[in-house]
């Protein structure tokens, strides 16, 4: 306990004030004006300091930790690949007689997998034309397009102290709105695209805004509401997709919409040989917008104040509840852009209820990896886009299921959220703690239990 208390918070962020030894109550959790996560509140402002802590963790950690976390996750992924590889299994049977075979098999399987991942995500050495050689990197950017937009949405909400786990629902509603405009209203070039994009943004914003309104008006916790709204959106869209006259393509019995009209499709950026579409430009514009919003605008200033200290924000005349509504509208709109990118860029021939492709959840990991900063999210989005593009190439080439990417992604986030763990694995010094942590007694509680995990990872890293 003492170990956890002294290392974890101190390492990540400066303590807001000098420690005043007035008793445990002054710093103890019991007396801090917090609202429990599970308990909706009403009336006065419900500050979420626990998310402040995580926000500090997200933004206060160093780039080094991020890179090491990615490395560590790749190592764990590599172990999984090696262990489940049939050749490795076969060779390990006679490991003690010829260990070299096992190591060779491990090398073959892991290097093959990550090689395929790289070639699928960045540069295809085997391509016989220039187009084929550089197509992977454009695929990466294509996959990154919705990840960036959705990651910005989730990250923006984080900055205002809100967890938006409702990316899936917001994307689905946005996709439905955008797709509906795209296939049913013949409009001139340009205008049609703009209207379709705006429709998606509005759809996502409304679905996100519900969360903000419920939080502001009733204190309903946004985590619960967003999770629930995801399922409601799934069933709503499923219903609309199988109902003639709603979203279902006329004359079809499949739960699928008609194809977009060509006037509403994002134009290709690099010509027909590549999948890359103008949605990327929209995502870049969105990144610039969020950067401006957070660091240069009055609204963003308020969001950040509310996110870090809602009490002080309220006393300073900032309308905290209204901020919750605004930030969820904006967050939903940004996530909606991801849905738009899917419908108008990636799947233009009509979509079904899987159009969100798990991006809503990936966005959380993107936002966390990007430390909720606009350009960090941009880079993280491209990284995870590369994982996706490479993952599919790996599945096709090496027969390694693309799901390994999910494992690596979630491990990255876990590691990033716990810098002490990463430091322990790589035996890095803990920053900001000059004095040696004293060890008056052997750890007897949770700190002891967590050690084996760290130790196991340390072994794995070697």
């Amino acid at each position: 306990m003492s170990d956890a208390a002294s290392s974890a918070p101190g390492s990540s962020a400066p303590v807001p004030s000098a420690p005043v030894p007035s008793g445990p109550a002054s710093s103890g959790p019991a007396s801090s004006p917090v609202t429990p996560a599970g308990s909706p509140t009403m009336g006065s402002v419900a500050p979420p300091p626990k998310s402040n802590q995580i926000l500090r963790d997200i933004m206060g950690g160093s780039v080094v930790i991020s890179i090491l976390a990615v490395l560590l996750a790749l190592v764990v992924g590599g172990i999984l690949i090696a262990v489940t590889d049939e050749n490795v299994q076969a060779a390990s049977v006679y490991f003690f007689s010829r260990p070299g075979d096992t190591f060779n098999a491990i090398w073959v399987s892991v290097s093959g997998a990550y090689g395929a991942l790289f070639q699928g995500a960045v540069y295809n050495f085997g391509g016989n034309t220039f187009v084929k050689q550089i197509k992977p990197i454009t695929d990466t950017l294509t996959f990154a397009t919705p990840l960036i937009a959705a990651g910005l949405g989730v990250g923006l909400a984080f900055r205002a102290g809100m967890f938006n786990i409702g990316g899936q629902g917001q994307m689905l509603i946005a996709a439905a709105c955008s797709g509906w405009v795209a296939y049913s209203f013949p409009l001139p070039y340009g205008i049609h695209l703009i209207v379709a994009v705006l429709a998606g943004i509005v759809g996502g914003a409304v679905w996100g805004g519900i969360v903000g309104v419920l939080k502001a008006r009733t204190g309903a916790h946004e985590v619960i509401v967003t999770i629930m709204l995801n399922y409601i959106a799934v069933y709503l869209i499923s219903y609309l997709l199988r109902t003639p006259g709603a979203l279902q393509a006329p004359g079809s019995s499949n739960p699928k919409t008609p194809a977009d009209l060509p006037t509403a499709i994002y134009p290709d950026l690099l010509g027909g040989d590549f999948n890359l579409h103008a949605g990327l430009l929209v995502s870049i514009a969105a990144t610039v917008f969020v950067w401006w919003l957070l660091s240069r605008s009055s609204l963003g200033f308020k969001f950040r104040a509310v996110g870090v200290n809602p009490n002080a924000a309220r006393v300073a005349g900032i309308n905290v509840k209204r901020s919750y509504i605004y930030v969820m509208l904006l967050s939903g709109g940004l996530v909606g852009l991801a849905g738009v990118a899917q419908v108008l860029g990636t799947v233009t021939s009509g979509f079904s209820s899987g159009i969100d492709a798990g991006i809503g959840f990936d966005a959380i990991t993107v936002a966390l990896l990007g430390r909720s900063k606009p350009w960090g999210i941009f880079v993280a989005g491209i990284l995870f886009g590369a994982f996706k593009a490479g993952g599919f190439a790996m599945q096709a080439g090496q027969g390694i299921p693309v799901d390994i990417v999910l494992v690596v992604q979630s491990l990255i986030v876990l590691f990033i959220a716990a810098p002490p763990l990463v430091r322990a694995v790589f035996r890095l010094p803990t920053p900001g703690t000059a004095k040696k942590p004293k060890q008056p007694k052997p750890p007897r509680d949770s700190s002891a239990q967590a050690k084996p995990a760290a130790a196991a990872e340390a072994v794995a890293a070697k």
Partner: protein
Amino acid sequence: MKLELRGITKRFGSLIANDHIDLVVKPGEIHALLGENGAGKSTLMNVLYGLYQADDGEILLDDEVQHFAGPGDAMNAGIGMVHQHFMLIPVFTVAENVMLGHEQTKGLGRLDLAAARARVREIGSQFGFDVDPDALVEDLPVGVQQRVEIIKALSRDAKVLVFDEPTAVLTPQETDELMVIMGQLRDAGTSIVFITHKLREVREIADRITIIRLGKVVGEAEPTATNAELASLMVGRSVELTVHKEHSEPGEAALIVKDLSVVDAVGQLVVNSVSFEVHHGEILAIAGVQGNGQTELSEAIIGLQDDVRGTIILDGKSLVGLSVSKVLDAGVGFVPEDRNVDGLVGEFTIAENLMLDRSDNEPFVKRGTLQLSYLNTFAEEKAKEFDVRSQGIQTPVGRLSGGNQQKVVLARELSRDLRLFLAAQPTRGIDVGSIEFVHKRIVETRDAGVPVIVVSTELDEVTALADRIAVMYRGSIVGIVPGNTSRDVLGLMMTGEVPAEITTTDSIEGALL
């Protein structure tokens, strides 16, 4: 049981909270531990109770050295504690709270609630408490909750009982009752450590007094010592806080508060029909024991309370029902009592905090965009003017000392065109140099003709600053008296009484019961 602390030292980083403290408490005596807020009293007791591990020194009970790894060990050794913030679980019954941690069980591992109830009644009857074992703690008045804390400690056969600032949350009657209980416990042979900073209580009940200051024992005294002797030991300087201030020439009434009542979120009337006026060029201090409605009163003025009845008129404009930002726009400057919670965003820079309550207004924001160059110039200027010591205006405020943090708040609030300045506990927890600075600025603000309200629980501060003093007690204003009223009178008024010889200066002093 005899308790002895030898050379207890406890550090938090570079801060030494306890510096080689020695203390002996004999069986059957009430030993008062006297010291200012932050002197290290609570830290010492938390070491004794096993919540903190001392860096040095030892604890002896009946001359045997003890090693407490946690509160469980301390309790088993016979130490009980009545915490300042009660360690009771609100949704549990009295009996459940009392049994927690040393539960008796019967068949199938069922809790033996009957035994716990009997224990509560037994201890209760022994000391004349009447506590229903099946009442939920959250339904009980504060004074009764404290008795539950005492029962909890006694149910574990505590031989040494520590009371940590037990009277901070009590009314005078409840305080008197507690004194009686402490006397009974002493007579029953319990050793009592009584932590407080209130001189009256110490002299009334203590058998011996140890005074600590800045983490060190600075002296021992008998209960016969005078207040002045105890106070000078406690504060360490015979210096009185004096603020150079000219006699004020109050102008017209600027703020008129009439029949103001505030109902809190649970329906409690926390401010009860309060009326007063503040004139231009005048400092009205609102004095009183913490928790008598001062906080809610200032929050009502600034617009932070939802259910406000009555009138608040500033320069002819009603403030009731306005949002906080509208009240700020009306020219009210506000220094909240807890700057870390309500006044500053610790992660924000000094510059950002300086525009915290002007995030909608020119010149800081134009067309929704922050004017960063203006902000930086402004911040540099204010940091210099208010002597904010830091590594530059981009330093996060959380890294500043308390005094410098408070200067940032002050700089922000005083750099607007004020029609009213309201400062709650403006010098709480800051160093002496900063206190002087803050006081100087408050007086300057008054001299500029701005009506000022200072809410303070510190009598020194009240008497140093105030032109007039309103004393609050249980949500009402007991009386409004001149700034030179003696401390004795003020102290009496803080208990709700109005001495006969005092005539309050205001005719609208509110509900005098």
